[in-house]
């Protein structure tokens, strides 16, 4: 009350001075008489605004410990996926691991088998890289045009994070890999002990042992406390909850590299060890399930990425592929990382077929769905990276072309 007294006087004086605006002064007075409520106090660990509702999506399942949850890429901005919204793919649930008891064992064809604590690993010189991670099965429904209604369900098994850890090569050198070793068999500490075979050349060249994600410890759903990161390779090879690296002279033909994550071709043969994720892009606004509120100017935007390096160019069509225009790419364009593209676009209330295509630094051009199917048929499930076309209708609603 004390505080409002001077302002009340001031307002009365002001109102008298300007004559006719006395009414406005009374209104301001009424506002001033309601003291503002204090906000929430400081907190130890932040939460997003309760008004923000973006969540991962997953199918109902009788076995919720296995399956996938999809990142809401239509609600994302920038190029980093919040750790809480990173896509998930688990095979037997998320293990609860005490990092003080977790060890990584490097064994097999090595001169000096090593057992490492998390403290050991964190003592070594670290590296940090922003990278994309994409499930090998992302967009699998596109092969048979049984795609999800929106971009989250059809393209949401992709996320971008900043990962921190150590180069695997450093520990391989310390363990003394024997000359006849050519593969690394990586195994997680989840209930099913998920296992993949990784060529030794990749492990030496670019694999990381990551313990950090987006400035804090990796989330349990993403492999806490330690995850193998194979830059540019399908998500499944980025073994979570990493507990064992076994050096061998042969791949172990694990279930998840033979029965799963292999690509069945029309002739009945399946491609195996198809690790790399090729260049891909998708428009996230406007995209399936969204409605443009009216005619006028919009910024069309989306994400592009490539397992082979930087995105060099993204081209957008708004006329069903007759003409393509280079979109603006958000800098910095980092290799093997989500790259946001943007293009101003005027919606005139006429239906439009819109799509994007990515070109990476190797010159690789994202193919059309038809080109992919001509090369691989429709039974391969994994590694779909075709151009995604959205149908913007005259009323502003957006759907799949097939819908």
């Amino acid at each position, binding site marked *: 009350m004390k505080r409002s007294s001077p302002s009340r006087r001031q307002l009365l004086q002001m109102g008298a001075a300007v004559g006719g605006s006395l009414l406005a002064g009374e209104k301001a007075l009424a506002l001033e008489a309601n003291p503002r409520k204090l906000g929430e106090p400081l907190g130890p660990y932040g939460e997003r605004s309760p008004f923000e509702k973006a969540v991962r999506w997953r199918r109902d399942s009788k076995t919720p410990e296995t399956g996938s949850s999809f990142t809401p890429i239509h609600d994302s901005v920038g190029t980093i996926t919040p750790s809480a919204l990173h896509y998930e793919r688990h095979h037997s649930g998320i293990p609860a691991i005490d990092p003080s008891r977790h060890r990584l064992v490097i*064994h097999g064809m090595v001169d000096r088998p090593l057992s490492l604590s998390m403290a050991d690993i964190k003592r070594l010189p670290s590296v940090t890289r922003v990278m994309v991670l994409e499930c090998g099965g992302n967009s699998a429904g596109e092969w048979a045009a049984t795609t999800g209604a929106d971009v989250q369900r059809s393209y949401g098994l992709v996320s971008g994070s900043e990962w921190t850890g150590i180069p695997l090569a450093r520990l391989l050198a310390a363990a003394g890999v024997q000359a006849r070793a050519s593969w690394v068999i990586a195994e997680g500490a989840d209930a*099913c002990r998920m296992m993949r075979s990784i060529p030794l050349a990749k492990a030496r060249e670019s694999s990381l042992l990551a313990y950090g994600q987006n400035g804090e410890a990796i989330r349990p759903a993403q492999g806490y406390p330690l995850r193998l990161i194979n830059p540019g390779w399908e998500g499944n090879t980025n073994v979570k909850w990493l507990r064992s690296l*076994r050096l061998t002279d042969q791949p*172990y033909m694990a279930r998840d590299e033979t029965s799963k994550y292999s690509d069945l071709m029309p002739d009945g043969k399946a491609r*195996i060890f198809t690790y790399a994720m090729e260049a891909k892009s998708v428009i996230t606004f406007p995209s399936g399930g969204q409605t443009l509120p009216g005619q006028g100017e919009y910024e069309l935007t989306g994400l592009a990425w490539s397992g082979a390096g930087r995105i060099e160019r993204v081209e957008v069509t708004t006329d069903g592929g007759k003409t393509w225009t280079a979109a603006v790419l958000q800098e910095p364009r980092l290799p093997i990382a989500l790259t946001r593209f943007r293009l101003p676009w005027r919606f005139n209330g006429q239906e439009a077929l819109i799509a994007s295509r990515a070109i990476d630094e190797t010159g690789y051009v994202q193919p059309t769905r038809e080109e992919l199917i001509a090369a691989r048929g429709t039974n391969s499930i994994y590694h779909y990276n075709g151009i995604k076309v959205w149908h913007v209708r005259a009323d502003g609603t957006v759907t799949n072309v097939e819908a």
Partner: protein
Amino acid sequence: MWRLSTFLLLAAATTVSAQSQAIQVGRPPTPEEIRELGSAIAPDGTGLPPGSGTVAAGQKLFAAQCARCHGPAGEGDVGARLVGGQGTLATPRPLKTVGSFWPYATTLWDYVNRAMPFDQPGLLEAPDVYAAVAYVLNLNGIIAADQVMDATSLPKVRMPNRDGFVADPRPDVRKDRPKP
């Protein structure tokens, strides 16, 4: 010797990397740690433990531990279908099962051992795993009812789709770069 030579090599490079390379971490794994890691099975049979299992024993075990998800005869339910599908891989509706698709019997042993039953992985002892594998192989007509699976016989089982896998030929969709 190794540490000294490594150190000298790196000292010749840069001071920073020599220092980081000089950090020695970890220790040899204990026998208990190695035991706890358990088996991982290579296609040549490396890693298979002692023990054996019969088709008959596998049938009983399957009924008790596997059928509730995979169906009484491996026809699939909540769990994957395990039998049939041979001859379908090159058709519009391929049916990928252990019998029609999996290239190595050792993979079945490895996966059952590490990941099954779904809700209690690690439950089965080695003889049980051999038995379960024997039964599923027999359901698919791959081994006879009187064959016994062990570390010697299992890697010799020839799966129908043994030659069904090829190397990654990508990039397989080639096109001219669009003009800027």
